[in-house]
């Protein structure tokens, strides 16, 4: 996580902080189709803000409205205190790194980076210096004279980043910037991005399909669904305290047990199967007594044992599958009513030494603070 994040960077909790971007009741329609549905959102200076959601939920549309490529149907977008209505893309202190990179094929790497500078009020004599600085930042000095088709995919992506950063925008929009990279290069680039963000102090808004990426780089994450913001929160809170089953299910792996809420207090009990002991978990948002609800718990918070353990919640079941992931194993356990619950444990012993195998009767257990009861 960004170091300023760790050191208590949390302007969204400060009522006096001025946001860089604010969406007020923003709706975007394409004909009769609503792509963005009445969104309110504030993004603060120096944030690394990630948009996460399934394909077609409106992430790109949201970005394009910030960049000035789509009009807003209803509501207002304010950037740095200025209402953006009617302001074209070329008049905004916002730069976008396109998903396809959109490098100019007829220009060299250096000329691509200089493209925006030549059209700004920067004096000619300073442009070369700035281009060199950008090339150094993305470590492409050696490739300055190449054309985009003469460099690798990862290098192209860095040129696109350098080009978008060259004008030192207040806001940088990144639409799935790392989509085309292999895992290792992607991780390196993620750290590079965070490094650059810290060095330049630019506010980043990033779209990604990869939740691990969002968790790694973002100060806050917005989870979107069908043009709506389901939750906007820090990565740990989105993971630990999702406000809906949708978010819990979307981020990471989760077990979901459906039932009915009872004894709603700081903790809530979930009545989930005829004759079974109710499950106790933390009370999530909008849970009401007697209403349908779901209990959600992450697999790594569920312990698995052959003998009956001492725990607030415990159920018995049969191992039906074991997924070996190298450093971890996930056990798929079928409860008597057919519900499958996953339990994940670290493999700190060699396989041969582990005692749980297929078809074993096991006990699953977890504490009463490990899971959440959420309204469906």
């Amino acid at each position, binding site marked *: 996580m960004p170091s300023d994040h760790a050191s208590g960077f949390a302007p969204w909790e400060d009522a006096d902080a001025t946001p860089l971007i604010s969406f007020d009741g923003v709706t975007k329609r394409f004909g009769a189709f609503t792509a963005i549905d009445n969104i309110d959102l504030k993004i603060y200076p120096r944030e690394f803000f990630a948009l996460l959601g399934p394909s077609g939920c409106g992430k790109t549309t949201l970005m394009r409205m910030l960049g000035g490529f789509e009009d807003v149907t209803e509501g207002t977008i304010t950037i740095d205190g200025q209402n953006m209505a009617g302001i*074209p*893309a*070329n008049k905004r202190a916002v730069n*976008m790194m396109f998903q396809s990179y*959109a490098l100019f094929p007829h220009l060299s790497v250096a000329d691509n980076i200089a*493209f925006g500078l030549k059209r700004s009020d920067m004096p000619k004599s300073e442009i070369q210096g700035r281009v060199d600085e950008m090339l150094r930042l993305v470590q492409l000095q050696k490739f300055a004279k190449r054309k985009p088709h003469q460099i690798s995919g990862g290098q192209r992506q860095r040129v696109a980043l350098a080009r978008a950063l060259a*004008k030192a925008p207040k806001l940088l929009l990144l639409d799935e910037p790392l989509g085309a990279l292999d895992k290792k290069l992607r991780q390196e680039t993620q750290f590079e991005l965070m490094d650059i963000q810290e060095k330049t102090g630019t506010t980043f808004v990033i779209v990604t399909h990869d939740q691990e990426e969002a968790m790694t780089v973002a100060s806050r994450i917005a989870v979107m669904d069908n043009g709506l913001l389901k939750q906007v929160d820090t990565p740990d809170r989105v993971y630990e305290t999702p406000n809906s089953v949708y978010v819990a299910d979307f981020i990471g792996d989760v077990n979901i047990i459906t039932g009915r809420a009872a004894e709603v207090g700081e903790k809530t009990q979930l009545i989930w199967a005829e004759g079974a002991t109710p499950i106790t978990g933390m009370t999530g948002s909008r849970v009401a007594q007697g209403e349908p609800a779901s209990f959600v718990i992450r697999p790594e918070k569920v312990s698995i044992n052959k003998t009956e353990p001492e725990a607030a919640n415990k159920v018995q079941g049969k191992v039906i599958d074991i997924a070996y992931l190298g450093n971890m194993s996930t056990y798929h356990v079928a409860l008597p009513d057919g519900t499958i619950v996953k339990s994940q444990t670290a493999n700190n012993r060699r396989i041969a030494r582990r005692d749980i195998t297929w078809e074993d009767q096991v006990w699953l257990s977890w504490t009463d603070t490990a899971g959440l009861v959420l309204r469906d």
Partner: protein
Amino acid sequence: MRRLLISIPYLWLLILFLVPFGIVLKIALSDVALSIPPYTPQLDLSEGWTGFRAFWAELDLENFWFLTEDDLYWKAYLSSLKIALIATFLTLLVGFPIAYGMANAPDHWRPTLMLLIILPFWTSFLIRVYAWIGILSNEGFLNQFLIWTGIIAEPAKILNTDIAVYIGIVYTYLPFMVLPIYATLEKLDGTLLEAAEDLGCTRIQAFWSVTAPLSKPGIIAGCFLVFIPALGEFVIPSLLGGSDTLMIGKVLWEEFFSNRDWPVASAVAVILLLILVVPIILFQRNEQKQREAEQ
């Protein structure tokens, strides 16, 4: 098998280009004669080797020297070059906006627009040029229209001037300009223009710094496709042009059919071909470069 495949294009080239060219060159080196065909010497293979020797001895470059002596010819070449260049430029001016409009039209309109561009090819070229006589003559539609609107009081002489020739060439060769430009513009990635705007360009600046350079291969291809046939054009200048419109195609025709001087006409054709070889090679280079850039 593979050799056979490779040899097909060469065979093609040999039969359709090199052999006819050889015949024309041979006629160009002969002398005019009152015979059928109207030149001498004729190759008589019945006399064997000595016949060939005699034939060979009679070929000379006389006709080429003649072309340099009479200034009609080099003036006609120069005038053709000038007319072809200007006409190509005018075709570009008319063709680019059409191609641009087509490339930016909604998807479902494009096939129709494409059809409209190709449609004129469905009727005879000659008929279309004759139709222009009806439009451009003193009593033609254009003059009638201009007088009706009050822009001019007297019919303007358009037919039988260079202007009519330009109109004819632009009209005839427009599809050759529009189609290659359209092909490059259609391939152009729209996000490049968005990127240019994002980096501070106005729409017009984005056009000049992105669209224009990226459509260059199409523009070059279109210009060659118009320039090369326009240079040797014969029908348009003879039907629409005036008596003082000098084009090498017309001279060539007159030498062949009015003067029946096949050897001089052939010499004119050979020189025309040599002049055309330069732009054709340049055109091929452009195509090659484009193909390489696409890989």
